[in-house]
């Protein structure tokens, strides 16, 4: 799961001319450490929804990679 999400994030970073992230950790902040702004988070949301059928922001804010994984796993 974390690898799939990491691949999507790296694809997005690459598309916006940013450096890819080598080591992902569940504690990483989406905004501060992975450099995702609100529009990129919106794009991440639709890409994850397309892949996993879950809208991660539908019922609250998610801040870290670990929280994204928890939403996708339905926890």
């Amino acid at each position, binding site marked *: 799961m974390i690898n799939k999400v990491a691949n999507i994030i790296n694809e997005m970073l690459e598309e916006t001319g940013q450096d890819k992230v080598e080591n992902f950790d569940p504690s990483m902040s989406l905004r501060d450490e992975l450099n995702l702004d609100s529009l990129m988070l*919106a794009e991440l949301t*639709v890409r994850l*929804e397309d892949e996993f059928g879950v809208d991660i922001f539908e019922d609250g804010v998610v801040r870290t990679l670990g929280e994204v994984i928890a939403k996708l796993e339905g926890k």
Partner: protein
Amino acid sequence: MKWVIVTGDSKGLGKEIVGKILSDTEFGVVGISRSNEESVKELLDKYPNRFKHISFDLEKVADIKELYIKQIRKIGPIYGLVNNSAYAYDDIVSNLNVENLERMYKVNVFSPMHLTKYAIRDMLLNKIEGSIVHISSVSAHTGYKGLSMYASTKGAMEAFSKNTAREWGARGIRSNCVVPGFMETSMSASLTNEQKDRIYKRTSMKKETDVESVANSVVFLLSEKARSITGTAIHVDNGTI
């Protein structure tokens, strides 16, 4: 093929917009209205591959997510959205009925916002620089007795459009409004001839707004020709100034 969603496709301005998109562009059209397929049979027969009609009541705001996931997204990538459907609850404000007002806000404001949400999400997923057009009303700019509540729904959508334009412009997604004057459609059917004449006299050109001129403006804003136009409103109202 890329698709444009048009709400209120079964009559009046909506039907005219659908016809113009199908005749003047290469987009497919997903038409949404409460009416069944019979009301749009002519268009379905003429454009069997480029026109799809979905019967849906836009008062059911909470069902729009399912409408998008189960029906709209299966048709194809969304390029455009024309929020044209509207419910007219006309009365002086001292007679305000909350159920009618809520129904009007669901159809005229909440559903268009929800459709915009899913249209933009679809554009993000498919990397499409799309165009959104909301149909407003001259009543949001010039006062008419009995239209304060209706006009407020249109004013809400104009503010929404300007701000979504700002929000998504960096992704190439545009949002604009077309502001028609009074047209001879079912929306104005309850007005008497005397009331209509009074309204038309307030325009520079002293007559009703031409439906085709409004539809042409919508198709223009959808098109690549309008690629530098966003966050604005085009008034097609015979000069109500």
